[in-house]
């Protein structure tokens, strides 16, 4: 098997500056605002695409910071990490570098829903991301506060009523211009921090709030609809004050599975365990007693249903015991992160609450938990390239689009960065289909359906889950990414090697045929049904639960042993292939509908089609780009789809005759 060493943090310096006067230029292809998971992926992707890129962040020091939980991946989220990695993004390799506790969730439920996950060392994660950014050519990092966007008249060649041409910085006279600007401001857009009854402006404790000018421009000048969401983070607990004897030890997987397709192993030698503990009725009591002191929880802003604060858990499901995970923050860190105890009550009540949990009976809090409320831009105003439909050159990614989670942010950031670069380099925008990736599902859900609460990825959101597996993200995305220019040649070559080997191996398995009698003789442990008369191929044999590729290869070493490197992937391919074949027709139908474009300037209210008023209003508001996107809108009935389909067919025919389309009268 091929063993590659983990790529170390490289130290080739590109320009990192704390002072604008050091910048070599005033004009970039792409400017990325924000240095979180979305911003770093966006900047790195744009630079990989060949765009001169500037990343502007308030503090260079916090680039790559894990603001909340010290972990990456999980069910659905792990899929996103694998896909970002397949497109040569940063977070997968950063996870392998910084991970201190690896496990595959859902191990018993089938490879399509395995959730690769790791606890991370915060320090190492930041180091890796910062090191990577420094090593990317064409990428400049600048410390500074963005005061506003530069807005100009739209270019007549593209749809849109405004054009963003750059940014202005606080305390700096000259603006910086760019073809594309990617905003990844996270929770900083009109963010307010809540602890108990006190409120202060900001998106993260310890960081300055972002400029009011930016928020004003988005809402007032660009006319974007915004909504408000909230989130929170738990108090951090001093490790040595925890009584681990009263908590359940949860060891990680014995052999860590790397996130990245480029890594065969992870960095950490000795993994650090997690502990599980539960809430008690005392916890519920403290929540009830502190409610009147808790501003954040009293407001009815939508919080994450899937990662709720302890207050909302207790209020929604009273009388139950809730899980609390005690997660390590790093190899050398003195702190623990209590997953499940996000809270916003006054700090003294927070201490009372955690001490109601047996393992935490004498725990000390290092820093209290707090809540954040922030503006998000309703993502139905974005195209599938994550560009604001009405504003040329403005791209949004991450929490600003109403999502929650590092992985969701990274995925959007990468794709926004790719498209920001496409625009700067004058190539057409690109989108990922929900039939080929979770990133496609994520973006399609956001731009078609919008959000009503912080959006988190689940495997159930993907219609073609059996095909979009964590194991095959490289085959699905790396060739496409290479074609676009965001994947390095070395990764592409590796993906091609894997693809060829898998194809060869599957051909060898298909060519290997055994009569049932020989099966029973050679593979006595496989319960081949007696009634089968026909011979079985290697692919069919691998569908038996009890047969692994290794076993099969040990019986037929001359034919199969050269593919042992791919044992697990071959087993998965064999089991899933028949199911994926069933989905093919449906995938083709969706792809066809996704290729039927709806003109962006249709006047839905005067469209001569039998559409209900409700359907017209929805279509007018969302302006789906394709028929496929329209079918997935809430409130659009199959009948309305038929009408639209008729219209598209009709419009195409008319277009061929050179006649006019129905367009919105201005």
């Amino acid at each position, binding site marked *: 098997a091929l063993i590659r060493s983990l790529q170390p943090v490289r130290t080739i310096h590109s320009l990192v500056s704390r002072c604008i006067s050091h910048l070599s230029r005033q004009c970039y292809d792409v400017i990325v605002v924000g240095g979180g998971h979305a911003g770093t992926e966006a900047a790195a992707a744009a630079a990989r695409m060949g765009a001169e890129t500037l990343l502007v962040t308030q503090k260079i020091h916090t680039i790559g910071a894990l603001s909340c939980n010290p972990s990456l991946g999980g*069910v659905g989220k792990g899929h996103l990490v694998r896909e970002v990695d397949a497109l040569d993004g940063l977070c997968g390799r950063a996870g392998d570098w910084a991970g201190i506790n690896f496990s595959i969730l859902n191990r018993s439920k089938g490879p399509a829903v395995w959730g690769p996950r790791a606890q991370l060392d915060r320090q190492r994660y930041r180091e890796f991301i910062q090191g990577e950014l420094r090593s990317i050519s064409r990428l400049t990092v600048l410390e500074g506060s963005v005061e506003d966007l530069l807005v100009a008249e739209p270019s007549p060649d593209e749809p849109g009523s405004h054009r963003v041409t750059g940014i202005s910085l606080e305390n700096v006279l000259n603006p910086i211009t760019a073809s594309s600007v990617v905003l990844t401001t996270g929770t900083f857009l009109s963010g307010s921090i809540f602890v108990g009854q006190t409120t202060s402006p900001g998106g993260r404790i310890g960081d300055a709030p972002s400029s009011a000018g930016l928020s004003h421009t988005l809402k007032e000048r660009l006319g974007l609809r915004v909504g408000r969401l909230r989130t929170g983070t738990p108090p951090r607990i001093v490790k040595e004050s925890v009584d681990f004897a009263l908590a359940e030890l949860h060891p990680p997987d014995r052999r860590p599975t790397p996130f990245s397709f480029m890594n065969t192993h992870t960095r950490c030698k000795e993994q650090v365990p997690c502990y599980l503990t539960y809430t008690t009725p005392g916890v519920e009591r403290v929540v009830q007693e502190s409610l009147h002191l808790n501003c954040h929880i009293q407001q009815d802003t939508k919080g994450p249903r899937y990662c709720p604060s302890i207050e909302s858990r207790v209020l929604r499901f009273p009388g139950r015991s*809730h899980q609390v995970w005690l997660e390590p923050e790093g190899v050398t860190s003195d702190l623990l992160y209590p997953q499940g105890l996000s809270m916003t009550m006054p700090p003294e009540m927070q201490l009372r609450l955690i001490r109601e949990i047996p393992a935490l009976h004498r725990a000390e809090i290092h820093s209290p938990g707090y809540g954040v409320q922030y503006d998000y831009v309703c993502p139905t105003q974005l195209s599938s390239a994550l560009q604001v439909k009405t504003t040329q050159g403005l791209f949004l990614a991450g929490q600003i689009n109403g999502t929650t989670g590092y992985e969701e942010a990274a995925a959007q950031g990468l794709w926004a960065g790719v498209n920001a670069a496409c625009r700067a380099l004058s190539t057409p925008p690109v989108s990922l289909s929900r039939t080929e990736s979770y990133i496609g599902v994520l973006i399609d859900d956001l731009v078609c359906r919008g959000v009503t609460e912080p959006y988190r990825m689940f495997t*159930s959101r993907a219609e073609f889950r059996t095909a979009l597996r964590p194991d095959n993200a490289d085959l699905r995305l790396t060739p496409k990414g290479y074609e676009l220019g965001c994947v390095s040649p070395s990764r592409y070559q590796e993906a091609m090697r894997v693809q060829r080997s898998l194809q060869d191996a599957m051909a060898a398995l298909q060519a290997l045929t055994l009569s049932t009698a020989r099966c029973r003789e050679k593979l006595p442990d496989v319960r081949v049904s007696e009634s089968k008369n026909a011979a079985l191929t290697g692919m069919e044999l691998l569908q038996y639960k009890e047969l692994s590729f290794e076993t099969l290869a040990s019986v037929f070493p001359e034919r199969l042993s050269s593919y042992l490197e791919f044992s697990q992937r071959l087993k998965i391919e064999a089991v899933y292939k028949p199911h994926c074949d069933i989905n093919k027709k449906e995938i083709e139908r969706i792809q066809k509908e996704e290729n039927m474009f709806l003109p962006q300037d249709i006047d839905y209210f005067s469209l001569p089609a*039998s559409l209900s008023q409700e359907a017209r209003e929805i279509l007018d508001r969302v302006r789906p780009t394709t028929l496929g996107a329209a079918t997935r809108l809430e409130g659009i009935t199959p*009948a309305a*789809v038929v009408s639209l389909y008729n219209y598209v067919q009709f419009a195409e025919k008319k277009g061929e005759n050179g006649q006019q389309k129905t367009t919105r009268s201005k």
Partner: protein
Amino acid sequence: LWHFLATLIRLVSTFNGVPAGLADADTIFALSSGHGRCGVAVVRVSGSASSMALRCMAGLKRRLPSPRTALLRSITDPHSKEILDRGLVLWFPGPHSFTGEDSVEFHIHGGPAVITAVLQALGSMPGMRPAEAGEFTRRAFQAGKLGLTEVEGLGDLIHAETEAQRRQALRQMSGDLERLYQGWSHRLKRCLAHVEAFIDFSEDELIEDGVLERVDSSVSTLLAEIERHLKDERRGERLRSGVHVVIAGATNAGKSSLLNTLCQRPAAIVSSIAGTTRDVVETGLDIGGFPVLLSDTAGLRDSTDLIEQEGVRRARERCLLVLNKTDLLPEAQRQKLERELKGVSGLPPVCLISCQTHEGLQDFLSVLQSRVKTLCGDPLSDAPTLTQARHRAHLQQCVAALAQYQKLRDTDLALAAEGVRLALTSLGRITGKLGAEEILDIIFKDFCIGK
């Protein structure tokens, strides 16, 4: 008349130059009652210009009649003001109409000249054009007035030749099947939601115990219900397409006479179900409201082939024994025969008839009717039955997919969940949650103009 209408329609359509269904802004009209001489003919108008048509042709200058109320008016030509007929007009303002649009009905006398005059008058007004085949139904479907199975029910209702077929179609149109399938869909959605929740959340958060076990039992129950629905011996489909009755027997037993006699009896109306005369002699009959396709054959023969023997055995189970030519038997011998027949066990019901004198024919017809009724089921009292082969195919896919869940539940929950997803998709396809093109294919095949 039909040729004339067709020519007229073709002319107007060409003039209009709009492909079917693409210019829904037009107001459409058509003769909605049957073609040919009849007492009353109904002309239907649907679209935004309906009220204008009503005002111009029924002399209602000031205000429209109250909705859905019949009004007796003189119907005039909008241009020449010549009176064309005197009849009822009904005004159905949208959305409370069949199509969901403003609609008008003219109930006029059924003579060809009157109908032609009214249709010509309608066509002479701006924004009006004759309806394409199935266009009223399509507009109703697009306005969300009808679900897909309801549309199919309507298609059947229009094509229904017998009373029982009419009842079944009406029942389907009123949404009984739709409700049955929607109910299953709803339950399957719950199952799926639980499986998905288990996949996405069971590792992270506390998921109640027994979630999957509850899904298991729901899936089993559903599977049993759908299988029972499928095992209706095709009653609904049979009622829809007709029960095949074969007259078999020795040569010169009077098989053809029986066929001819049945065809001439008032109790058995010879009908013209499309496709009836597909092979040798097959005649469509309405027996007590049930459709019957009667055919004359060479008869059953003893066979050594195992499969054929089984076929013959099954055919015998559904037999009626008809003994013809009773008029040739003296009364005493006839009574003796009847007595002896009663003594033989294992015989099918016996009917003694004479095609010559029509003796015993009435009894035979009622026995046949009760047999046919058992085969078709009572479309009103029983659970809704499967009426379309399309539904059967989707339900079979659904059953197979649920079996996949059961088979893979313990080895690969993702693939098992895929089974539930497929099952739900299959059910959805029955009730119309399909891709745009598929919906089009299904709906817009089978309709006649004006319906």
